[in-house]
Structure formats: structure tokens, C-alpha cells
């Protein structure tokens, strides 16, 4: 079976459910890139990002994650699934951390404390300035990181980010503003 480039996600999903492996491959190739880049920036490790992408599409394949076209677009749904999987990974990692770590509330208490467990600072990118931005991003609290990555790297609107993260638009604005401010502080030497 051949799939035309103009085929919509819904058509591909339908064909995939009818047993077309080509449709599934086309759907995967269409969305894996943004999803992988999101997961990579979000959890900071290439291996974890690949696992998240694989689990997201496996969930789509097995019916574990049910996409409803009436509730939004497939890319946003996939971002939401990937984000939830990453949160589970972080939750599992946090169980091994000592008590007294700052929570995920909206204050800036956690801004200066790098989350080494969830965001390894190993070099990922070749370009030095890009790598510095990535590292600064990795030091943001996860809930700020979500908003900044989805807005700056994936061009999602406030409403789309709100849907992906399950928060209201006002919270998206606030997290984006605080995340940007924290990044600007960290990257001040780079900008000077």
C-alpha cells in the first residue's frame, strides 16, 4: 500500500487499524522527529528519549493510548502521552532521591537547583552555544521546561500547551515567562 504525502493522520490511523504496516510506518515517520526532540530536551538523555518515543507509538499500536480526533490533533496527543511517560520516569527516579528536595510548585524555589537525575548534563549537541542553551534548559524545573520547549522548539500555541500539559492558559503564560527569565539569567554570560 502506498500513502500519499497529503494523507491525513486520521486516514493513516484508519489504514493502520485495518492492518496497513505502511500506514503505521508513515505515521511514525511523520511524528517521531518532533516527539524525539521534545523527549530529548525534556529528559536530557538520548536513550530515554528513544524509549519514550517507542513506548508512545507502542501504546498507539496496542490501544493502550486512545486518540480521539474530536479532542485535538494527533501531534498534541502524542506530546501529551510522551510527557506523561517522562513524568513517570521522573517519578520513579525521584523515589531514590533524599528527602527535602523542592516540589514542583509554581514558585521559583527550584530554579537554581539542577535536577541531575532527570536531566543528565552529558554533552548531547555538537554546537557549543546550542549545547549551553540545552544545558540551561535542562536545569529548569520540569514544569517550566515543558512550556518552554513546546513553545520555543515546537511552535505550539498557549492553548495547545495548555491541552498537552493539562493546565490552563494563564498557567502556561506564567510558566513560560518564569522559565524564560530563569534561562536568561543562566545564559547571561553567553549573551554578553
Amino acid at each position, binding site marked *: 500500500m502506498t500513502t500519499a504525502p497529503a494523507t491525513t493522520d486520521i486516514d493513516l490511523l484508519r489504514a493502520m487499524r485495518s492492518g496497513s504496516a505502511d500506514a*503505521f510506518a508513515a505515521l511514525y515517520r511523520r511524528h517521531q522527529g518532533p516527539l524525539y526532540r521534545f523527549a530529548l530536551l525534556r529528559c536530557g538523555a538520548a536513550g530515554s528519549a*528513544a524509549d519514550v518515543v517507542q513506548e508512545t507509538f507502542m501504546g498507539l499500536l496496542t*490501544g493502550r493510548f486512545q486518540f480521539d480526533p474530536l479532542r485535538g490533533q494527533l501531534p498534541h496527543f502524542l506530546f501529551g502521552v510522551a510527557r506523561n511517560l517522562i513524568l513517570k520516569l521522573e517519578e520513579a527516579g525521584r523515589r531514590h532521591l533524599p528527602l527535602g528536595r523542592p516540589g514542583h510548585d509554581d514558585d521559583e524555589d527550584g530554579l537554581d537547583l539542577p535536577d541531575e537525575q532527570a536531566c543528565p548534563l552529558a554533552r548531547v549537541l555538537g554546537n557549543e552555544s546550542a549545547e549551553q*542553551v540545552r544545558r540551561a534548559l535542562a536545569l529548569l524545573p520540569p514544569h517550566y521546561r515543558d512550556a518552554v520547549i513546546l513553545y520555543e522548539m515546537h511552535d505550539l500555541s498557549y492553548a495547545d500547551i495548555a491541552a498537552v500539559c493539562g493546565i490552563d492558559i494563564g498557567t502556561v503564560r506564567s510558566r513560560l515567562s518564569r522559565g524564560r527569565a530563569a534561562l536568561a539569567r543562566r545564559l547571561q554570560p553567553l549573551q554578553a
Partner: protein
Amino acid sequence: MRKNDAMDSRPTRAPDHDHDPLFDALRAEMATLDTPPAVEQALLQAFARQGAPAAPPRRWYQALSARDWALGGGLAGVALALVAALSVTLPRMQAPSAGMQAAASRPQLVRADDGAPFIALDSAERIEDEPAPRMVETVVPRSSLVALGLPLTPDNAGDAVRAELLVASDGRALALRLPDIPAMPDGGWIAN
């Protein structure tokens, strides 16, 4: 890692999407990153093993075939026609005749007393046991006696009727006699 930009469905950047220039280098660097090919291979193998992926649970109305819909629609139509037919015929079948209506509306304790209707307003025992009844003559509107079964026509609706009230010593009305209204021997009214 390979690049599949042709299949990416990144939304067009909105003109009012104010991007932070800090991310330009990161965006350019990340644009070349994709999920490792092993992930696609694993997913396609999983697809081949599983066959057609599980379709989302269908809603009840989606599970019905065209034949089911036709059958259901036909049954509903027949039921509606039946209800409509019953609603027309039942009231006719149940409509009582004029005589039956008069008999039904006739008070239980109506007797003919000297050719005039005698209407007991209390029980026969109470009337018989009353030690000092007195008769009070009065005139009442004919329309006020409709509740007691007195026939009313447009011609006599405004008439007044002479009535004799049997009143107990405590002032309570025990019975009513209408001397100007002819009554049938069995106590039925004669319309006039």
C-alpha cells in the same frame, strides 16, 4: 540518527509567535535529530507480530450495522404508528355516553321526593338522627348546582333555582331539595 523533515508535520510558525533568539542555535542543531532507526524497526516488528492494532472501543451506535439501523428504525416507526392509532381510538372507546355521564355525575344520595329531587348532603344516618332539623328556603344560581349533577344548558345557565335546605341544629346543611326541578322516580334529573 537520520532526518525525515519531508514527513514532519510541524505547524507553520504563527507570525505573532514571539520566539526567543536564544533558541535559534538550539533549534538549528536539534532539527537534524531523529529517533534511532532501531526504534522504527522494533515498532514495525511489533506491528507484524500483533497484526492490525486494537481499534478504539466503538460506541454503541457505531457498532450497529446498516441493517440494524433499518430494523430499529422500522420497529420505532411501527411503535410510533401504534401509539398514534391508540391515542386516537382509545379516547373514543372510553368516552361515556350522555346518559352514562349523567348517571356518573349524579350524587349517590339523590332521591325523588314528591316529584322533586332530594339531594342528601350528609349520610342518611346523620340526617335521620338529627334531633332538631329545620328547613330554610333560599334561591341559588343554577350553575352552582352543576357539581351535584343538575343539567345545565346555555339557555338556563343564568337562571336561579329555588331550593329548600335541611339544616342541622349546628347550622350544617344536611340535604337539599329543589322543588321547581322535576325529577325522575329513580332520582335522575330531567333536563329542562
